[in-house]
């Protein structure tokens, strides 16, 4: 079956004083139509860089050095800047973490909202204004007509994020990349924004890549979850399996470090140590330095991706032990 987005062996490197350092290390994943894939991981694990790689918006010192990104069977890598401009905002869109800084402070909401419509749909100003009012209604902004003439500073964070969503979805893209769009918002607003994204997703039938580090958000919105660590995908599974039956020690650590509001006596578990830097050379499994279950093999040999179930993969040597019928050591 052809998927909406197929990322294969993607490798993104950064030019630094220490040479070319990989931030994303040969990762592969895919997204279906109407599916939400959550990318989870600590800060610096490469999840934002993965989403920027897909958009072709890497900072000037970053470049994709290998692999392919196929959207509707079209390889995005190697496309010219003009071709990417045609696609961005049209076939694939992005919303950002910080609604406070993602809108231009000196231009009105209406002006910015008309941009995707005039760029991709060649609408006149009048048509675009009309379409913008509809868009604002769609994302649940009251008094949409008046809002068009307001400047971003006159709107609250939640409202601005709604405007961002309206801009991103103006041309009904088939793929939306959402880079922590709710992290900077209040919890109540967060829930509303998540509902809104979910609702619009089924309206348009788009696939969503949702980057977050909030496991609560993951449980709410994800169909499938991809856990990243130090530039690698360590575990991929449908959302139930991630929460019910996590396999990789890192995923378990992440889940254990989520506070439980109902349990007062709970002591938070932390994953010891910190994320390795881009230039740290680590032999074997990249997590073995922090892994409580690390064995001799982890130190020397990089684990392949083991199949737990057909929809659940874990990149950990413990799987080999499990699959060869020996007792499960981690549970």
């Amino acid at each position: 079956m052809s998927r909406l987005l197929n990322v294969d062996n993607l490798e993104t490197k950064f030019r630094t004083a220490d040479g070319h350092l990989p931030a994303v290390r040969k990762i592969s994943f895919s997204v279906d139509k109407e599916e939400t894939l959550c990318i989870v991981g600590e800060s610096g694990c490469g999840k934002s860089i993965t989403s920027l790689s897909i958009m072709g918006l890497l900072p000037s010192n970053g470049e994709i050095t290998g692999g392919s990104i196929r959207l509707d069977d079209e390889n995005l890598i190697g496309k010219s800047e003009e071709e990417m401009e045609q696609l961005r905002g049209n076939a694939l869109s992005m919303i950002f973490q910080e609604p406070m800084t993602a809108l231009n402070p000196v231009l009105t909401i209406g002006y910015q909202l008309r941009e995707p419509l005039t760029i991709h749909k060649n609408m006149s100003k009048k048509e675009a204004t009309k379409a913008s009012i509809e868009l604002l209604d769609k994302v649940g902004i009251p008094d949409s007509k008046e809002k068009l003439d307001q400047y971003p500073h006159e709107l609250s964070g939640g409202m601005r994020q709604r405007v961002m969503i309206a801009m991103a979805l103006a041309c009904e893209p088939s793929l939306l990349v959402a880079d922590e769009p709710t992290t900077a918002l209040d919890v109540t607003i967060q829930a509303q924004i998540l509902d809104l994204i979910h609702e619009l997703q089924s309206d348009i039938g788009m696939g969503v890549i949702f980057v977050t580090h909030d496991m609560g958000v993951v449980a709410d919105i994800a169909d499938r979850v991809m856990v990243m660590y130090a530039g690698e995908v360590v575990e991929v599974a449908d959302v139930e399996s991630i929460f019910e039956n996590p396999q990789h020690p890192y995923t378990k650590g992440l889940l254990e470090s989520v506070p439980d509001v109902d349990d007062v006596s709970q002591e938070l578990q932390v994953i010891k140590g910190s994320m390795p830097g881009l230039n740290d050379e680590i032999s074997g499994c990249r997590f073995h330095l922090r892994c409580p279950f690390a064995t001799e093999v982890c130190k020397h040999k990089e684990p392949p991706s083991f199949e737990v179930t057909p929809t659940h993969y874990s990149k950990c040597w413990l799987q080999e032990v499990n699959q060869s019928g020996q007792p499960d050591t981690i549970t």
Partner: protein
Amino acid sequence: MPSAAEATGKNSETEKKNHSRLVEIAKSLLKNKLSVIGLIIIALIVFTAIFSPFITSHGPYEQNLESTELAIGSEGHFLGTDNYGRDMWSRIVHGAVISLLVGLCSVGLGLIGGIILGLLAGYYRKLDGIIMRIVDLLFAFPGILLAMLIIAMLGTSLVNVVIAISIWSIPGCARIVRGSVLSVKKQEYILAMKSIGASDWRILFKHILPNCTAPLIVFGTMRMATAILSTSALSYLGLGAQPPTAEWGAMIAAGQDFMWEAPHLAIIPGIAIMLTVFAFNVVGDGLRDALDPNMDLNN
């Protein structure tokens, strides 16, 4: 049609919004007493320049050899006449037209050149080095010397003065714009604009440039003062407007020979230059405070 009515209703509302921002700036500008004085002077100069045919009784080049070097307050010539009997008031008013036109044209051209160079240098790292080195080179010349050099190459005329002064305005403007671009282009809203497929050209002119307007307005106003002063200076030195043109600098040059018999021939255009330059400078100062609330030195 309802849709048309809607559209016009919207337009007027947009104007109201923009208006309210303008009102805010105007209010804060009017709090500054010096700026108010400057604004009044500029308004008077602009008024006399526009209505010059209606507020003068003689042409600026109309000679009357029977009434030369009349003193200030003479009958029919309240600013007196010069050594050819030409009405000083008419000549001063005509000089205002020239000064304002030369100032506007040279500052306008300088801004256009500076904005384009500044945007390119700030946005494209590859062009930055070349453009800014050229700008540094222009900066290395003392301004008036650079203008004289350009005029020496092009020949003496008012048009060449405009060209010289606009070239002289380019480096300052380019630096201001480049600085703004460097800080604005890193903002997330520029990345957000890229993510909806906006081209570089669109981002530069429609999304980055509006963020540079505040410093540019201030620069433009201050630059008007410099441009008017330099035009007069160049004309005084004989490099700009040539006699008998009623240009303030040229009038001073012609009048200084009669310093003892009729000092007003040199002093009146001198006062005109001083007032104009003063007015533009204080308004520029006031605008800077009004446009940037963080710069308020009184708080």
